[in-house]
């Protein structure tokens, strides 16, 4: 069992009307189709705010990227923040077939990462299993008018009537948002890409697959540098894979990658060109009393994220979220149980493959609260400073504008209290894998299977 000191706030949830933390979350918007039968292509596979929070991008299994834009502040409704509306939709990846390996390459968008803004246009990287693409999203509000040889509607003029030359003139038009592919970074990954991360130097980024991490220059597509390679000479000896990787938010030379064995390695690119030797290894010794057949599976890290200030990193494994101080390698500084009540259900979760679900996690703008998803369309808010947590639900039932989300509680065994949900009635097909937090404000985006919920802080 986890240390007692951490248990005594684990299930502290204030009564109805309160919240796990001081913020009261209320419904803002839901995107996506309402009908129950879900098209495979519509399943959301990644959610990401840009650096200002003005834009929110989602990627789906159909290879599409949808970008939502926050409407500019409306003074008459100042108590309620503006909504996100569709800004641009484009097909980022198409299904492909690798004829040499006889492999289908899915179009599913695995990750989206925004680049820091460099001019009036916005740029993002999107990736499927094999190919990373750099997209430019730009606005156009002028178009040229005036031809010499034809009318604006396309009818040709009699060439004999041309006596003077006309130079076209730009005239205002309705705003048009264009997404155009600028770079395609292909053919560098043998295995499936699980992460991309832009460096703070603004000119390089990394891409990680199961066994390797490559470093790219954003303007160079025909070569990348391999910086980590954990592929053993003999694949039979393979014992772990890379599950996620991220650059430090400020130190351009530092990145981390997590493994299926529950460890995180921090590498310093200054030390050498090939980062096979890590400079720090974050690992918590396993509690022998807790060991079971599933120990290794549930300790696999599904996501790793640096805090905005760069001091901490957060990892998500199957049952918990851990916060690590970069200066302390032997144990996390904080451990939060996400859904400890599932520990007794691991066998059935193994049978229905749910145990392999890759939950992501995210920080709020000032690193005081973290969020991650669970089953039954529940998601968890873990308040670090107040050591409180709350479970909320993204559901159609609480979809009224500005409706405050009620905390949910799961009965962990024993007698079920009023308002509690029994573990057996949780729906494991409804899971929240992908969430995102606005970089400055209390606005969150939560992806259920094919819907995107946007919640925000209730402002009185």
């Amino acid at each position: 069992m986890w240390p007692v000191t951490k248990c005594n706030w684990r299930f502290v949830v204030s009564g109805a009307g309160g919240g796990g933390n001081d913020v009261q979350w209320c419904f803002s918007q839901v995107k996506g189709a309402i009908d129950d039968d879900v098209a495979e292509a519509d399943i959301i596979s990644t959610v990401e705010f840009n650096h200002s929070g003005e834009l929110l991008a989602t990627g789906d299994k159909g290879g599409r990227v949808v970008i939502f834009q926050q409407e500019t502040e409306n003074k008459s409704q100042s108590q309620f923040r503006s909504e996100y509306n569709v800004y641009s939709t484009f097909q980022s990846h198409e299904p492909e077939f690798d004829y040499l390996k006889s492999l289908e390459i899915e179009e599913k968008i695995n990750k989206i990462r925004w680049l820091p803004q460099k001019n009036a246009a916005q740029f993002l990287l999107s990736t499927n299993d094999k190919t990373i693409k750099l997209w430019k999203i730009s606005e156009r509000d002028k178009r040229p008018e005036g031809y010499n040889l034809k009318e604006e509607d396309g009818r040709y003029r009699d060439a004999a009537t041309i006596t003077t030359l006309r130079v076209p003139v730009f005239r205002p038009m309705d705003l048009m948002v264009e997404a155009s592919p600028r770079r395609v970074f292909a053919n560098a990954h043998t295995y499936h890409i699980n992460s991309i991360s832009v460096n703070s130097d603004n000119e390089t980024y990394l891409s990680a697959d199961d066994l390797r991490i490559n470093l790219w220059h954003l303007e160079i597509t025909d070569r990348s540098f391999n910086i980590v390679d954990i592929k053993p000479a003999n694949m039979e000896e393979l014992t772990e894979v890379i599950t996620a990787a991220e650059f430090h938010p400020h130190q351009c030379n530092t990145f981390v990658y997590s493994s299926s064995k529950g460890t995180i390695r921090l590498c310093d690119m200054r030390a050498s060109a090939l980062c096979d030797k890590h400079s720090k290894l974050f690992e918590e010794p396993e509690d022998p009393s807790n060991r079971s057949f599933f120990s290794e599976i549930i300790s696999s890290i599904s996501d790793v994220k640096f805090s905005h200030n760069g001091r901490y990193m957060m990892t998500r494994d199957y049952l918990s979220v851990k916060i690590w101080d970069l200066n302390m390698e032997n144990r996390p500084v904080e451990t939060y149980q996400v859904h400890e009540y599932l520990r007794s259900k691991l066998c059935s979760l193994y049978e229905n493959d749910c145990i392999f679900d890759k939950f992501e996690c995210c920080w709020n703008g000032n690193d005081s609260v973290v969020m991650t998803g669970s089953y039954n369309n529940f998601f968890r808010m873990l308040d670090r400073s107040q050591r409180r947590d709350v479970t909320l639900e993204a559901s159609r039932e609480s979809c009224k504008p500005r409706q405050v989300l009620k905390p949910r509680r799961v009965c962990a065994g024993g007698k079920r209290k009023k308002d509690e949900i029994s573990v057996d009635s949780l729906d494991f097909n409804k899971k929240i894998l992908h969430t995102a937090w606005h970089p400055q404000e209390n606005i969150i985006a939560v992806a259920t299977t094919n819907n995107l919920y946007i919640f925000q802080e209730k402002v009185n």
Partner: protein
Amino acid sequence: MAGAEGDDSLYPIAVLIDELRNEDVQLRLNSIKKLSTIALALGVERTRTELLPFLTDTIYDEDEVLLALAEQLGSFTVLVGGPEFVHNLLPPLESLATVEETVVRDKAVESLRKISQEHSPVDLEVHFVPLVKRLASGDWFTSRTSACGLFSVCYPRVSSSVKADIRQHFRTLCSDDTPMVRRAAASKLGEFAKVLELDYVKSDIIPLFTALASDEQDSVRLLAVEAGVSIATLLPQEDLEALVMATLRQAAEDKSWRVRYMVADKFSELQKAVGPEITKTDLVPAFQNLLKDCEAEVRAAAANKVKVFCENLPEDSRETIIMTHILPCVKELVSDTNQHVKSALASVIMSLSTILGKDNTVEHLLPLFLVQLKDECPEVRLNIISNLDCVNEVIGIRQLSQSLLPAIVELAEDAKWRVRLAIIEYMPLLAGQLGVEFFDEKLNSLCMAWLIDHVFAIREAATCNLMKLVEKFGAVWAQNTIVPKVLGMANDSNYLHRMTTLFCINALSEVCGQEITTKHMLPVVLKMSTDQVANVRFNVARSLQKIGPVLDSSALQAEVKPVLEKLATDQDMDVKYFALEAISVLALA
């Protein structure tokens, strides 16, 4: 001017203008490339008032169109009415200097730098400098990076108050929030320093250099190294120690290997910039450290510089420094764990012998060459062999020949055909240095063996190699040693080898001269015209065409013509084709 000449002359221009906004990128690109034609037809007035405003708004276009536009505008001065109106070109170039695509921005900056020279001093202050300031204080870093490249072109030609202003703007950019801008500033720091007055270099540039060289971003620090080299060339010798050396020393020991790599890569320039005294006191130990660096990339970059560094050492102490400081490091590198390091070293190590003279070479360098000749990596061995000429001049190649031979034989039989190809290319050089006797004895059989290699590229290179050998050793040698062997292959059972005979004859006929060609080669070629493989037959036709000019006319008429005529009636159409071609080229019809 427009309008006056009527429809005929206007039509093509009208098409060009319309295609500026065609849906097809290629057509737009064509139109942009003929922008000067359009401008000429419109006249200077309309170019200024209509065409340029249109182009200023065209920034939504594809990169290649924008790139072409940025380039065109750099030579547009005449078309807008000469230097008096050149500032009209600034608005479109300003908007191009803010696009996200680096190549376009760089081209726009290049054009801006070009037209800045066409501004009068007054226009420069009234129009150009404000543009630079606008870019330098732009919201987006794309415009600020572009600004960095424009300071140095306007600085020398403006009044001192504006100069102060420009320096201030440059300072601001050096401490910009985004690493992109700091990188751009760092890369232009040296260039900007060159146009500044020496006092300002000391008071302004040095602090900026020191700050950039200790930037938190590796990518900024490594660019500062290059700037440091340029700045060092500007400063008087006595100021170097106080102003730049501390920073440069720090760069050579930077925590990041990329920065140290940059120092190693720029080492020769640095050496020239700081002069002999500082080289002795500072650079020699720094160079030793780089040669022993823990990162292979750094060691390889430093190893590449060994020759130039040693050459440029002050003459009075050169030999001592090399023998006591550099050579021990070099000895370690010979057995480095990384093959790139060893091969970088192998490409320069031989040239040390010219600097060290005969005795040192025999005593100290020769053992190293011999180790490298036995290296497991073929590239290392090749690099040694390809530089043999340096050693030959100092100690003669004989000293090496005993070890050379096994190395050459091993490379000649390497499993990778590219390695075999590389060694073939050095054969003529080796033959020249080892002499004909040694060659006949040891290497001739290798050269012949390549002729029957199973890779065509090797057979082809071997053919070419024979030609070069004959050029070196002469026709008599050819007749005695290689021609019999080549002609012998004409009876080989493998048609590929029979064709090799033909290819060799093609290559050799000219260098061997008329007599050998007519007496020995021609009969073989003619005999092969009845070969049962069509590929051989049409190559006979091609060979005859090739060697025809070497033969005299009687041989052509009496022997070549009947054979070609017969081949021209061959049942294979390729044979017919090449026979007819040869007949017409040799004018035998």
